[in-house]
């Protein structure tokens, strides 16, 4: 397969009002299908969260990763996404989450490690524009001198790749540690004693409102990749995602797929 360049594609931007965690899971799934089928153009989707959530990776065990009682006590919804990787603790306004859905030609011939780094080069540039010296830390982190900023995950389906990232904008580390179980073994080769110390959010590093950081990121993407067309979710697309959210992503069978 020949590799395509960012500029070879006409990128669309989806950035709508806040949506529920399960709908976000379903939208990634539907949009990956639609880009694979050529019925949706390559898209950057910025997420807005309607409520707090723990988003588990596809291969994580619910019991091992989440304190279900603590999550319930805090009113936090626990969902499972279609990509691998680790659990994310989300509170509306505290993270910046985005998905890039692209033809897999964009990363053709790359190793997974190269593909992860490639898909976030524009973010490294955007962060530099905000005065943050950030870099990619394999396998799937964006990090800085002060600590980790973001984690990425990819999923592939037929001719398309989904690359989604959650960046810490602000974080209630104490609450995160009540809800997520982060064992010692996981941190064994990280050289840090706690999960909270590993993360340093964008708010403290930029001093900018979240919306302004997002605006700068969108502008960087637009300039670097030759444009970004404002788009909305089609009625059919949204309806399919709502059905999938209800019938799959909101079900205990999916959330506890690995109990």
């Amino acid at each position, binding site marked *: 397969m020949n590799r395509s360049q960012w500029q070879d594609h006409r990128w669309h931007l989806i950035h709508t009002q806040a949506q529920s965690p399960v709908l976000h899971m379903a939208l990634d799934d539907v949009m990956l299908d639609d880009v694979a089928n050529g019925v949706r153009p390559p898209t950057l989707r910025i997420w807005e969260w309607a409520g707090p959530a723990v988003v588990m*990776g*596809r*291969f*994580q*065990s619910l019991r*091992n990763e989440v304190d279900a009682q603590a999550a319930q006590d805090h009113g936090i919804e626990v969902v499972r996404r*279609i*990509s*691998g*990787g*680790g*659990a994310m603790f989300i509170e509306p306004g505290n993270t910046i989450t985005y998905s890039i859905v692209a033809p897999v030609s964009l990363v053709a011939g790359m190793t*997974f*490690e190269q593909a992860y780094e490639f898909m976030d080069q524009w973010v490294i540039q955007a962060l530099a524009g905000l005065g943050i010296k950030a870099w990619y830390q*394999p*396998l*799937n982190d964006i990090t800085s001198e002060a600590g980790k900023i973001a984690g990425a*995950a*990819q*999923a*592939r389906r037929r001719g398309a790749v989904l690359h989604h990232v959650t960046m810490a904008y602000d974080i209630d580390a104490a609450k995160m540690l009540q809800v997520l179980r982060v*064992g010692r*073994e*996981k*941190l*064994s*080769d990280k050289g840090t004693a706690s999960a909270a110390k590993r993360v340093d959010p964008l708010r403290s590093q930029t001093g900018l409102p979240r919306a302004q950081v997002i605006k700068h990121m969108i502008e960087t993407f637009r300039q670097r990749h030759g444009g970004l067309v404002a788009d909305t979710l089609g009625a059919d697309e949204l309806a399919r995602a709502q059905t999938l959210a209800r019938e799959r992503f909101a079900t205990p069978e999916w959330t506890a797929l*690995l*109990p």
Partner: protein
Amino acid sequence: MNTTNTPAHGEYKIPGGKLVVVDLSVADGRIAAVQVSGDFFLEPASALDDIDAALKGLPVSASQEHLATAVTAALDPDTQMFGISAEGVALAVRRALASVASEDQEATP
């Protein structure tokens, strides 16, 4: 020999990779049920079922090498593993099995 299902848990953080978690139960000297989990990446996702199936039924005495070979043999050559390896899964299984063995020893006067 232990004929009841004994649950066991093992974890291994692959250096430079991801965390591999194994929950299994042992019955009659063999792995009776097993679930591999973690924050790794696998394409296709269904490869995880193949990994679990490959481990089920293996004797608790299986070496790390034996376990890794079984996992590799069960995977389609096109499977993409990122942050996880057959050797890493095997080591996490060995850790889980070692915890069963030590519990058995403690139970023996």
